[in-house]
């Protein structure tokens, strides 16, 4: 899977960050600068199942 970070900003300013194509915790490292800058202290930080599958595509979603 092609790597990349996607940020969706809702019409009320809520932000969702999703990392695709990363291995394991690489996704949280990749999205860290954005999640801190956009969300401050995340209220939820949901790791999707792929996160735990070391060599497979991993995703992380953070929503305010």
């Amino acid at each position, binding site marked *: 899977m092609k*790597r*990349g*970070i*996607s*940020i*969706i*900003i*809702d*019409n*009320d*300013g*809520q*932000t969702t960050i999703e990392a695709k194509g990363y291995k394991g915790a690489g996704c949280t490292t*990749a999205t860290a*600068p*954005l999640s*801190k*800058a*956009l*969300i*401050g*202290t995340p*209220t939820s930080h949901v790791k999707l199942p792929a996160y735990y599958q070391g060599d497979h595509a991993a995703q992380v979603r953070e929503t305010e």
Partner: protein
Amino acid sequence: MSHVDSGFCITDIAALALTVKDQCPDLELVKQKSYRTWIADHGKLVGDYPLPGTYQIKMMAALKRQDIDVHAKAAKKQVELPANLLDLEKKPWTLEEQKQMFQDPTFAKAYEKICQEVVGKDAEYVIKHKAGKGRKDSYEIGLVPHPVNRGEFVMMADFYAQGNGILEATGVGKHERKGGQDGWGAELKKSYAVCAAERKIKHEIAAGNPEFGSYQKTTLPDGRVKLEVSPKRGI
């Protein structure tokens, strides 16, 4: 009426200043301690809404500094406070719980004190009408330093009567009640979030972060904004 809502956390005050300048022609962001709410004109909150979460934390912190066991006191009034009082920010006590708790004079006095001495007087920046714009009694939007997280600001405004007009100013976004939740300032919050995200992405690109090679910005049919970041080529 008094509805001082704690809405949104700001982590990039410069992005907010740019957003206000770009899309709110009648408003300005200034460095200012006090922000006008119902309390400024009437001396107290009406009490028809619970104290915002940020102020619940400040109130409880003040009581804890006096060695008062707030959990035990609240429990006597059948209110269970979160073990970590910082959780009040995202899950504040309800109006019903507030009424129960405030039967205890310790809580009632602390509430009066925080309303008199803190609410509306603890901002670092304020968004307000420019001179000659808006109503004379227009409220102001306060950027209150987060009680714990340095560098973060909680956006506060009294949304009674659309904040006496400020929430109807171009580029802000009116107060609306949807699904039992109060919201306001959607336009401002959305544009701020886009601006803050783009600034951060550009910063990471300039800093040479290999995960930030380039990005594309798209407005989706429903108005949401999508930013897609690609890593540097060859990574």
